[in-house]
């Protein structure tokens, strides 16, 4: 499509409008406000429309980025959204939480000489444009197959796999252990970074595609995978249960009152709405001084969540230096702007008892950086005799998550590795059991939303191929059991 070429680099990368730091720490509203149509088009004009675009390879779900940006340039925002939706059913989420700086934007040709095109901000703008106008891109498939797929877990991997399989006409049911679907998108990522209404709307789109969602079902407890095959008539199963078993530090005092895992702290606030206590019934303890331990996105989310619950001070303790923090730069900056105090090269060794079983502080040791370790980052080494106590009454431990064994331990023949993660082929999600596929954090260990979505998408393609190899069904599939009646409208299974 012909258009006047703007000289590359003449227009700078457009900054994201956001709530001022002093205001936003007083509320749980979204921090970043999104592009206006004018800003979006100005930014879109910066795209070079490379003949051989590198950005598409940088995207775990291979969105045709130049094409959607061209639609934005043309002012056809709905067309842009439709283009993204071909590859990604959850654009409003990805536009907010993807680490674009490590993916599409990291390889953007513009970025070699100037700043990369703000692909993530454009994706978000486009997704919000259709969302805000109530336009749904999801159309129920015209033809349905006789195949039924069970998806375990309604986080990013499961939602993506479900959407892809539903588009192909398969009958898809998602089983979610909690009372609300969304997985880490609802219990983990805070409202101010990803409003829950957006997650609900994206899940609504999947329901339009015919996906059924069964909440309050713990696969491995309520129903076993083998029962899904043998009794419920499913042809394939995708496991996307995530990395939901919090690691603790295993240091003295960890059972003092006031010590939380990040999962518990965030779940109380996000899923259970503890920030509205006592209007909601679930409380959370946030005292004067809060200490968050860890350097990843979860630690940053916990620290910024704590700030919004009116303590006097929130400190983030990390055992390496800022350069090694695995959290996104944008989030680190947001946290600093909002007033989180960073204490780098600090490692907790003991939680201090106030004398009555409540937390009074955390004893730490200073660290210095030594030789690089297996992760390539310089290994932190304790400085002897440098112990000191950070006063605090609330601690949030955010040092990572392991694999939950409920599904693996109740599914004979399903192979796991020494960390307890399910062994699955990266390209297909194929596990050691025929018909069972897996992807996302339960396979890779804790990673990002978009990588889980990428895995869900690859697994969906492999599941589709697998379903084609099955002999045609000769008997009627078992009727949907009475207890599995659809919780919402949608296309019924064949």
């Amino acid at each position, binding site marked *: 499509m012909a258009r006047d070429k703007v000289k590359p680099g003449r227009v700078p990368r457009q900054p994201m409008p956001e709530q001022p730091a002093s205001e936003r720490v007083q509320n749980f509203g979204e921090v970043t406000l999104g592009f206006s149509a004018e800003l979006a088009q100005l930014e879109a004009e910066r795209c070079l429309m490379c003949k051989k675009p590198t950005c598409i390879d940088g995207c775990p779900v291979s969105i045709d980025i130049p094409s959607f940006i061209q639609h934005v340039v043309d002012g056809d925002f709905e067309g842009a959204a439709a283009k993204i939706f071909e590859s990604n059913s959850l654009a409003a989420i990805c536009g907010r939480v993807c680490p674009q700086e490590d993916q599409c934007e990291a390889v953007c040709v513009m970025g070699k000489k100037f700043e990369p095109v703000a692909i993530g901000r454009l994706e978000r703008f486009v997704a919000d444009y259709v969302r805000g106008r109530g336009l749904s891109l999801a159309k129920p498939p015209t033809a349905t197959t006789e195949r039924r797929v069970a998806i375990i877990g309604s986080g990013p991997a499961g939602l993506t796999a479900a959407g892809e399989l539903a588009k192909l006409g398969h009958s898809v049911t998602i089983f979610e252990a909690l009372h609300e679907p969304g997985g880490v998108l609802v219990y983990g990522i805070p409202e101010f970074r990803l409003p829950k209404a957006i997650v609900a709307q994206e899940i609504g789109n999947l329901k339009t595609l015919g996906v059924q969602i069964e909440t309050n079902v713990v696969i491995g*407890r309520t129903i076993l995978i083998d029962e899904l095959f043998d009794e419920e008539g499913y042809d394939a199963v995708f496991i996307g249960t995530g990395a939901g078993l919090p690691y*603790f530090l295993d240091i003295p005092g960890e059972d003092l009152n006031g010590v939380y895992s990040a999962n518990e702290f965030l779940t109380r606030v996000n899923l259970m709405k503890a920030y509205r206590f*006592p209007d909601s019934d679930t409380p959370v303890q946030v005292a004067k001084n809060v200490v968050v331990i860890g350097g990843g996105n979860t630690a940053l989310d916990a620290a910024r969540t704590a700030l919004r619950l009116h303590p006097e001070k929130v400190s983030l303790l990390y055992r390496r230096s800022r350069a090694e923090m695995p959290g996104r730069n944008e989030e680190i900056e947001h946290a600093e702007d909002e007033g989180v105090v960073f204490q780098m090269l600090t490692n907790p060794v003991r939680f201090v008892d106030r004398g009555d079983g409540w937390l009074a502080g955390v004893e730490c040791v200073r660290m210095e950086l030594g030789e690089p370790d297996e992760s390539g980052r310089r290994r932190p080494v304790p400085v002897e005799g440098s112990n000191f106590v950070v006063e605090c009454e609330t601690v949030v431990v955010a040092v990572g998550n392991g694999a939950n064994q*409920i599904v693996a331990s109740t599914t004979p023949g399903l192979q796991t590795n020494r960390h307890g993660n399910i062994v699955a082929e990266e390209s297909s999600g194929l596990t050691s059991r025929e018909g069972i596929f897996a992807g996302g954090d339960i396979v890779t260990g804790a990673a990002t939303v978009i990588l889980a979505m990428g895995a869900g998408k690859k697994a969906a393609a492999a599941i589709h191929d697998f379903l084609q190899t099955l002999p045609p069904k000769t008997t009627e599939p078992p009727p949907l059991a009475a207890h599995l009646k659809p919780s919402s409208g949608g296309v019924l299974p064949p």
Partner: protein
Amino acid sequence: MFTIVEKKILAPKVTWFRVESPLIAKRHKPGQFVLLRVCEEGERFPLTIADSDKRTGTIILVSQEVGKSTGLLAQLEQGESILDVVGPLGKPTEIKKFGTVACIAGGIGAAPLYPIAKKMLEVGNRVVVYLGARNREAIILQHELSLVSDRLLIATDDGSSGYHGVVSELLRQHIRLGESCDHATAIGPLPMMKAVCAVTREYEIPTIVSLNPIMVDGTGMCGGCRVRVDGKIQFACVDGPEFDGHAVDFDSLAHRLRMYRDQEKCAMERAGVPHGA
């Protein structure tokens, strides 16, 4: 879903529910629990399953009003539904032939103990139930437990029924008098389970207790229910809820149960529930 098909008051502030829940009924084994949410904005809280019936697709829950959420549950009537019920969670009780099994209940601990006693009897154990309560009115499921035991003994704090004193002392007396005991299961308030464990430790009787710490998800995700067992952190929801009573750090757990005492008071005041209810 989760419709209450039958409701009874067993004792003051203790309610018995038969709840429609075919999936949970099908898979339930003694010792397992469910997590409930009574209303939107409500909290998630655990309750051990007191019995199940695969044929009717129902489970039995017994709840004591101790806070806002259990208060709201008690107000639900037959025909109404519980908003969310998820389970069966946790590891089932180890049921095998031990010889003589003492099943020791404190208060509404009698409810989760019932299916355990029933199964223990079924596999050929001699089952002795020690049923403790504050007073005569607070005794629940006496008849039901008598049907699944070889012997049933009662202790009340005020002596209004059976032995005058705590159930752990009743147990001690009977062991002294020569009542055999190869294995014990104790379910009730923490001080009661701790006291029972002190007795059984003396007589070197392996003892299982069922813990009921504060939980959010019940699947291992939050770690809020962590308890110290043999010096190690365990998650009651996935590693338990039953543990070796002689290895449990009861004091730490008792303390953790008080973590939200102030907030509970606040929630109850707002809900118009009198203190100490």
